[in-house]
């Protein structure tokens, strides 16, 4: 038995820092005056001569302390640079920190420290090498670029993984400083190679750096099968931060076939047991992504991830719990029924922070089903009396939401809500009334149960205009035959009109009074008269005044017409129980939710809005260009059975398209899309053209920017200059393309033999074409052919539609071009031919610039 080594003593933190604190009670954070910085300067100068390591450390610590306090100590830059020559690692770290902080302020002086840093980059101690490199890259000065490159390259092949990982990160810093330099230095290829590095940390950083460097152009790094399998094989070596990077990649990968898909899922399955919620959520994202290819699998995936989510939630911190709940909410909408039986896990606990409570209440409302609704409503009713008003408000709202979804429970819920009206708490009654109003809108046949109880409330919600307005609205809307008290409910309000301050209440009072007037004229007539008189003389609100006048004039002009206007149709249609299906808000939510689901495990889910709304443009990641693998194509295209190239099914994967303008058009039109196919040549299109025609007409007029067309002088320009001027901002809807393609005659067909096939899918080709103004509508890889559909618009409005086929075996590229005539074009076919040649020439140029032909 040997005595414990000194290090093992260190593992008891409680003793060590305490001692340190007592020995050396530092007082760095005392009041400072201007003079102190100069004093420090003096001290630093003497240090250079003195060489007392302990003193040196103290002085430099003081400088950093000032820096932390926000005092500008950049004046000391020269002295600090001198202090860098030290063997003391702690001092070195502090000086590096100082340099990184103030290099911006003193770029010229910063050059002084380059030598030392460069020397440190080749020190014997890997720790020093790493630190120096990190500092060098963190200075972030353009003037330093030339000094960074060499040490950075050396670091990438350093024998110490610590230096390598720092070096990899350095590339990213360089990239942010000078993107062009980093790109041209071929770091991307180097990094792709370094993914094979034996050290997991280095690999993690490679993935991070590649992801960020390529985010803006290609939507992240390219994934392929060997890469994914390599990473998944080493899954066990990575720590949680590394795991999330790998998982993010897996979430972009499309497996080649189902077998591979299940292999990947099995490899990922154990990861669900890690205790890090970020990792588990990333894994879930992967699962959900993988399951999109196999719809049958989706319910199983939700079932599988249920338990880990609940465990994390039960044992986590409130902040983490909140994140999980937000994601749970997103999933609950997607997988109705899966989480229903775990509703008790979502009961609110006394000592939880309210933001967690709010989330739980919202989710409870979503997962209630026919069986559990009794329990859940009873539980929510408990929260309604909570001291926190927001909790109370939300739970009442949640109860109402359940009623909207489950018609069978509406009666029971309404009864409970009526019970709330008696509770003497500030927040409960108004909210209950608001919810009841919505329930009655949904189930008007339930009015008999609710209305009689409202009477007593009218006076008690004086201080809550919204609730009062809702009450008045209900009285007006439903206060007909079976609610004789209606008019007398309004009477006191009408008589005390002068005391009502809220315009909202006044407006609803007007509407309710006139509605009731047509239902119960004898009682209401004089009341309405008084009200109209008061309201037309009301100068406090223009709206009230105008509406009163409107009603007054309507009545004067034609009472029958007024009745039709005020009561509308639904009084005629007595059985209108099924009119309201879902509220419009709910429908809007569904599209939003789909969008959010694409951004699972990001802040977008937390905020409930797509990232484009809160992330500034420079941080947005380009939607990933999915290179469709044969398997995916098989799933999407094989079924359509139409010689294997249904263009529109490619569109269905909207990650192919720019995220912006497409959604609205695409989603609603799916039925008509399903029937139509894109022809290989120009003649095959015989689909149901009549309705498509209307649609695309509209599309064309939208797509062609009007301001271009109305510029008359432009029409004189020559179309066929060899430098083709295409409009950058032009966007075309898939439908439009589809239609035009079918309609237009083929202008030119052109074949060219390629030297090599595009190596990385089609993305480089697409990007270079894009830079010339030719946009890609869709692209994909089939078993024996690459396919691209491209389009562009000339400055003068002429449209170009291009299809490119690259046969893999013969390496032959086949290009078909169709030209859409612009409206003001008067030239003959001659001009068309010339511009067609210009397009072909442009594409040939691109091909040769990529060394393909």
């Amino acid at each position, binding site marked *: 038995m040997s005595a*414990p*080594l000194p290090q093992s003593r260190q593992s008891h933190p409680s003793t060590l820092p305490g001692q340190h604190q007592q020995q050396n009670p530092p007082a760095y954070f005392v009041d400072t005056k201007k003079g102190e910085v100069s004093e420090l300067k003096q001290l630093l100068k003497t240090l250079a001569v003195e060489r007392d390591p302990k003193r040196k450390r103290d002085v430099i610590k003081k400088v950093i302390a000032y820096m932390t306090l926000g005092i500008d100590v950049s004046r000391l830059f020269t002295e600090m640079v001198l202090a860098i020559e030290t063997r003391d690692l702690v001092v070195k770290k502090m000086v590096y920190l100082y340099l990184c902080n103030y290099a911006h302020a003193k770029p010229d002086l910063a050059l002084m420290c380059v030598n030392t840093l460069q020397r440190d980059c080749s020190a014997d101690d890997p720790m020093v090498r790493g630190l120096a490199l990190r500092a060098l890259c963190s200075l972030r000065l353009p003037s330093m670029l030339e000094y960074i490159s060499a040490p950075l390259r050396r670091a990438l092949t350093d024998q110490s993984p610590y230096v390598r990982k720092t070096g990899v990160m350095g590339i990213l810093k360089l990239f942010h400083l000078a993107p062009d330099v980093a790109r041209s230095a071929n770091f991307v290829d180097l990094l792709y190679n370094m993914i094979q590095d034996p050290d997991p940390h280095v690999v993690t950083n490679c993935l991070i750096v590649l992801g960020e460097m390529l985010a803006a152009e290609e939507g992240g790094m390219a994934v392929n099968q060997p890469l994914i399998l390599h990473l998944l094989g080493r899954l066990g070596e990575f720590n949680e931060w590394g795991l999330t990077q790998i998982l993010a990649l897996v979430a972009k990968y499309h497996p080649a076939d189902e077998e591979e898909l299940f292999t990947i899922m099995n490899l990922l399955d154990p990861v669900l047991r890690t205790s890090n919620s970020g990792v588990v959520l990333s894994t879930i994202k992967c699962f959900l992504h993988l399951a999109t290819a196999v719809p049958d699998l989706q319910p199983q995936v939700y079932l599988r991830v249920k338990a880990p989510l609940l465990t994390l939630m039960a044992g986590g911190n409130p902040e983490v719990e909140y994140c999980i709940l937000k994601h749970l909410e997103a999933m609950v909408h997607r997988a109705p029924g899966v989480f229903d039986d775990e509703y008790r896990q979502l009961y609110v606990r006394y000592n939880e922070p309210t933001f967690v409570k709010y989330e739980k209440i919202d989710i409870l409302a979503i997962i209630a089903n026919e069986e559990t609704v009794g329990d859940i409503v009873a539980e929510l009713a408990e929260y309604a*009396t909570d001291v926190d008003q927001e909790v109370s408000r939300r739970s009442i709202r949640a109860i109402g939401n359940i009623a909207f979804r489950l018609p069978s429970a509406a009666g029971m819920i309404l009864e409970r809500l009526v019970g709330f009206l008696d509770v003497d708490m500030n927040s409960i009654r108004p909210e209950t009334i608001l919810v009841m109003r919505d329930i009655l809108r949904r189930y008007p046949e339930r009015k008999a149960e609710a209305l009689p109880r409202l009477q007593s409330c009218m006076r008690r919600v004086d201080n809550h205009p919204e609730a009062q307005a809702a009450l008045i609205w209900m009285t007006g809307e439903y206060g007909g035959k079976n609610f004789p008290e209606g008019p007398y409910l309004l009477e006191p309000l009408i008589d005390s009109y002068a005391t009502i301050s809220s315009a909202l209440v006044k407006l609803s009072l007007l509407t309710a009074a006139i509605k009731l007037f047509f239902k119960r004229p004898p009682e209401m007539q004089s009341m309405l008269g008084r009200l109209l008189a008061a309201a037309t003389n009301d100068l406090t609100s223009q709206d009230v005044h105008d509406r009163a006048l409107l009603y007054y004039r309507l009545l004067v002009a034609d009472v029958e017409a007024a009745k039709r206007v005020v009561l509308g149709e639904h009084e005629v249609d007595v059985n209108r129980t099924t009119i309201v299906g879902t509220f419009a808000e709910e429908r809007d939510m569904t599209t939003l939710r789909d969008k959010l689901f694409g951004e699972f495990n990001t802040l977008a889910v937390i905020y409930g809005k797509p990232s484009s709304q809160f992330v500034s443009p420079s941080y947005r990641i380009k939607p990933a260009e999915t290179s469709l693998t044969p398997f995916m194509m098989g799933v999407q295209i094989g079924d359509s059975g139409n010689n294997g190239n249904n263009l529109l099914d490619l569109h269905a994967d909207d990650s192919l398209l720019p995220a912006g303008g497409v959604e609205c058009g695409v989603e609603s039109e799916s039925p008509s899309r399903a029937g139509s196919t894109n022809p290989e040549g120009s003649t095959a299109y015989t689909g149901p053209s009549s309705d498509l025609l209307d649609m695309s007409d509209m599309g064309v007029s939208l797509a062609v920017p009007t301001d271009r067309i109305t510029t008359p002088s432009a029409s004189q320009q020559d179309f066929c200059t060899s430098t083709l001027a295409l409009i950058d901002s032009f966007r075309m809807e898939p439908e439009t393309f589809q239609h035009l393609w079918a309609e237009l005659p083929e202008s030119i067909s052109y074949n060219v033999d390629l030297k090599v096939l595009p190596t990385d899918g089609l993305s480089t080709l697409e990007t270079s074409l894009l830079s010339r103004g030719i946009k890609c509508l869709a692209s994909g890889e089939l078993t024996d052919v690459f396919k691209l559909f491209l389009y562009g618009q000339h400055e003068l409005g002429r449209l170009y539609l291009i299809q490119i086929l690259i046969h893999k075996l013969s390496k032959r590229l086949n290009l078909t071009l169709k030209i859409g005539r612009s409206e003001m074009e008067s030239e003959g076919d001659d001009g068309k031919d010339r511009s067609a040649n210009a397009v072909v020439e442009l594409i040939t140029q691109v091909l040769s610039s990529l060394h393909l032909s």
Partner: protein
Amino acid sequence: MISAIFLVNQKGEVVVNRLYRDDVSRSMVDTFRHKVIASKETGSQAPIKVIENATFLYIRHHHLYLVAVTRSNLNPALVFEFLFRMVRIFKAYFGEHFDESAVRNHFTLVYELLDETMDFGYPQNCAIEVLRQYINLGTVQAEMEQQEPTVLTSQITGQIDWRRDGIRYRKNEVYIDVLESVNILMSATGNVLHSDVTGQIVMKALLSGWPECKFGLNDKLIMDREAAGKASGAVTRRSAGVEIDDCTFHRCVRLGRFDADRTITFIPPDGEFELMRYRVTENVNLPFRLIPAIQEEGRNRVAVNVKVTANFSSKLFGQNVVIKVRRGQGLGGGEDDRREGEEEGSGLLAASNLVPRPSHPLLSLTYPPFLQVPVPPNTAKTHINVSTGRARFEPEHRALVWRIKRFPGGCEFMITADVTLMPSTSHKAWSRPPIQVEFQVPMFTSSGVHVRFLRVYDKSGCT
């Protein structure tokens, strides 16, 4: 990626800040102070907030906020995990209850840690064991036996970042604690509507070298399998197994093996760590049973009557618990119609095949057993009667605190009290916080989970 980490005190002043990227500035803290701290929304509003295209994610440790700022659309759970990891690292360096002054006094160390755990906004190495090897308080460095630098840096990045080489103990010991928190929901009649247990297995390993540990719980799946494997003639005790709904593990556990045959094998970190967390929802035993009757009699009197029964075997005895009981306010404000409670207990077990030890409490659960009955804040005078132990009104807790030294199984005790309230002009609703009972019952767990064995195989041959 995270653009900056701020440590901010309660007033919103920066204690330490580290900017990883250029896209944020120090003045972001002012935004945070104005929009978050000043609006007093911490704790009630979500801890994630977007202000002017920058997202703030914050957690709180005592009076210190740890704030991460980002401008990109990142993975929020991961950021929180990172912030909590930072707290754990600070705790390891500055002690369990570190505060603002600790951070200020060791700000250089904090900078070192912030630099090493994160580079350019991405988490790097956050393993405390490894950090401790190359980030130490500086002053101690000289005295420490200097490790070979190359060995050190390979450790920083290597595969197993939770344990370092060359750990030696004169006496090899392992302690295991099972800590459980029970959530129950009771009806007014005392029926349990719902209960679940969240358990934690905490281990303190003081072992030399690279010990390979194998750990066994009375997990139902395994027990059934073993029972099936045995001769069918023997009476198999199926009930001995506990159905664990789900569990998560510390990073050191080999997850692949657990999924294959449910064995838990690992090389433990040195010192104390949380080995696993689990959740059990079936067959939960409640160690104590509380029957409270708290009546507000008029405007300035409250009558309290709480009966506590120990549900466990009379051979055991209670030492140490937390039961929190909230009574829902009935709609009419009168009858109690439900109770919700949480119990936290710890079943204490020590298992070690190296040094057998009798079970004894190891963790910091050293409260004297007590029961805390909340009373309204304007309590003036109390008159208390208890059948055992001692009880008194403690204004700082706004509660009657009842301490019981020893609570034998099967017994029942009672507290009755008359509380007189100060007359107040505004009648504010009393939120009726839960009753808390803290306790410790050795060799008892609510879920029935217990540790069957822990085997340690030492491969390196250290003694």
